[in-house]
């Protein structure tokens, strides 16, 4: 119980320091006032549910960004996971297939992590190439088009509810608490911060940087695999081209929340706030019947603004450090 108390206390302590939270509240208020149908229970539940898949993937992405890297392959891994799942279910049954897909997700992530940490390659280009690869692989395995799945368990996971709350939301919330706890309260989590904050210092301290980089990528791909499973369940089909813009939407959300791209700074709470902000914007634009092309335009403007702000404010802060 003490653990939960401690977490709640620091939670509220930090909340009032966060400007993003205020921004979120302001956005929510504005949307409720000006966007028709926004403040209805149906819409709000839809909104939250729609954020779950990207949300879970964003937890993983947060770990990667905290460690100072980027994982652009999450969309492709998600699509591939779905396709693999759909192909395996008829062979080995749903539960086994899910386990296999999740395990494959971890392996994919480990390979990414290996390429980045052991071989020291830029995470941006590596995960971009990997994305190519898994996109191609997904299309290959799926034979070029979506695969229908008519699996009751999968459908229940993606569309069912327990105690009248959608299962997706349950999963997202439970995973949030686990991921947050690990990040804040375990050696693993804190070392991720150290690795992202200053790799050299971390290494000199005896922290195995390679292990952590591998670990965060494994976590990220694992989350992407979960996303693939949920998406397939939700749509009752696996599409090999799903999630083509997932990586950047997720990264946008994480950065909006305030986790810095240079690493070592940020938190899962921030990621959730960023996701909500992004989700409210997306939802509002759809409700306002804004042309989808225009929507992409606005999201692009938002991304540029948020990134520019992140870098600008960080630069300003750096200038404050005293010298001689």
């Amino acid at each position, binding site marked *: 119980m003490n653990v939960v108390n401690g977490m709640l206390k620091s939670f509220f302590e930090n909340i009032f320091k966060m400007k993003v939270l205020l921004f979120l509240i302001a956005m929510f208020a504005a949307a409720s006032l000006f966007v028709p149908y926004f403040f209805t229970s149906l819409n709000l539940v839809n909104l939250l549910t729609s954020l779950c898949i990207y949300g879970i993937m964003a937890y993983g992405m947060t770990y990667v960004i905290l460690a100072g890297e980027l994982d652009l392959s999450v969309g492709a891994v998600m699509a591939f996971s779905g396709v693999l799942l759909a192909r395996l279910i008829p062979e080995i049954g749903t539960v086994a297939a899910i386990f296999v897909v999740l395990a494959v997700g971890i392996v994919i992530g480990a390979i990414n992590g290996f390429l980045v940490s052991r071989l020291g390659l830029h995470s941006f280009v590596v995960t971009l190439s990997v994305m190519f690869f898994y996109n191609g692989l997904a299309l290959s395995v799926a034979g070029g088009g979506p695969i229908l799945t008519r699996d009751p368990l999968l459908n229940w996971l993606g569309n069912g509810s327990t105690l009248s709350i959608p299962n997706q939301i349950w999963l997202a919330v439970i995973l949030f608490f686990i991921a947050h706890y690990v990040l804040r309260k375990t050696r693993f989590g804190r070392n991720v911060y*150290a690795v992202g904050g200053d790799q050299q210092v971390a290494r000199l*301290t005896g*922290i195995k940087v390679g292990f952590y980089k591998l670990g965060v990528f494994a976590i990220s791909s694992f989350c992407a695999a979960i996303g693939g499973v949920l998406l397939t369940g939700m749509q009752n089909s696996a599409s090999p081209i799903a999630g083509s813009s997932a990586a950047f939407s997720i990264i946008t959300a994480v950065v909006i929340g305030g986790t810095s791209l240079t690493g070592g700074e940020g938190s899962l709470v921030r990621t959730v706030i960023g996701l909500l902000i992004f989700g409210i914007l997306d939802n509002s634009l759809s409700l306002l019947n804004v042309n989808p092309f225009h929507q992409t335009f606005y999201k692009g403007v938002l991304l540029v603004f948020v990134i520019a702000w992140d870098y600008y404010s960080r630069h300003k802060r750096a200038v404050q450090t005293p010298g*001689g």
Partner: protein
Amino acid sequence: MNILEMNNINKSFKGVQALRNVSLSVETGEVHGLLGANGAGKSTLMKILSGVLQPDGGEIRFKGEKVSFSSPLAAQAKGIAIIHQELSLVQSLSVAENIFLGRLHGKSFNINWKEVYQEAEKLLSRVGAHFSPKTLVRDLSVAEMQLVEIAKALSFQAHLVIMDEPSAVLSGPELERLFDTIESLTQNGVTVIYISHRLEEIFRICDRITIMRDGQVIETRKVAETTREQIIQGIVGRSMNEEFPAKDPVPLGDVVLSVRNLTLKGRFENISFDVRSGEIVGLAGLVGAGRTEIVRCIFGADRFDQGEIIYKGKPLKVKNPGQAISSGIALVPEDRKNHGLITRFSLRLNLTMSNLKKVSRWMFLQRKKERMAGEQLVEQLQVKTPSIEQLAVNLSGGNQQKVVLGKSLFSDADLLILDEPTRGVDVGAKREIYDIILGLAKSGKSVILISSEWEELLALSDRLIVLHEGKLKGELAGAEATSEKIMQLALA
């Protein structure tokens, strides 16, 4: 009893012998100074001792037992802590997290933050730090960061603490506090190895010293039985008649630079001073005084809020260093390796980059002109290098600094701003740089000199301007200036 014995340590890198049969003994509870020129092997030896590197041969006995360290953590576990020259702190994390980096969980599985902060608080008060352990390291001053480093070393319950040039960024009261900390460490039975170029400090706090040169130990002696001359001779291998050159009086010309009421919020305010041609003006002060910030503003590297700069009679409006350089101002930055040079490029490229126009015609580079200019500068400054195509990274600190100076000369600067020009430069090269600086003044150029070594400032400057926390505290004419007077003004 000797707490440490290193016997016949050998280490080479890719065929270059860095350490040759080095033996070092340190007595328990003493402050043992380690001196030598850059490249003498001090850092390498300490890296082996602290587990960062492994020796090729030899043995280490710590507290009587034979030890071998495969990693820094192994050395720390045995009770050896090292405070590096480049502070090893993670800027984005808090003080407490940095102190216990990688060890936050203690013996349990999860982290008890309350305990962590409490322990950190205790360590901080031991070193006389007044800030909260929750402060982010990036919000601290450099001197405060050093305290965190020392607290970190204490947290390992180290028996032997190695300090690699800890005073490079300190002066005045911060230095005093460092010495107090060292003294309290030794009083508690902790042994200290102190690496420094600053001879005043060595005489002040060390009991014995070991001098290294070219990868070997030259001698170990008691400080009480050593003179400054003997130390210099040990380091350099020949006797230096003067550490500092004699300063001939140089006729001063007109005012070249006039700084009026220069202000940058939070850094410095109302700074006004003049510099004449042929004059060397020294800026003295403690860390945080704002000297580097001021000169960077003069150079156009940073913006300032108020005030004006008049250069050669006209108001100077530079928005970037390029404009300053075209006007005739040059800066030799504090951080030579990262800001002064592009280390992976050749000397030729480094020397000419400040004035590409001079070696181009209609945008096209003239190779012959460039080569001749480069060779001429290397000759003029006596840079030790087989050719101008040599990569900058291969040069010693002193020669690298000469290249940076050469680059400034190449831009035909009339006003040269030198920020810590001899930091990390060994004694022999220092003297050569002093001669170059005096030569510049003699030829009618103006120099603004920043240095944390007040003796250096006193020897070279015509006038000294003393700053304290962003305010101009006083001016001292060369003749009447002494370290004590500087100290008085720097503190007031």
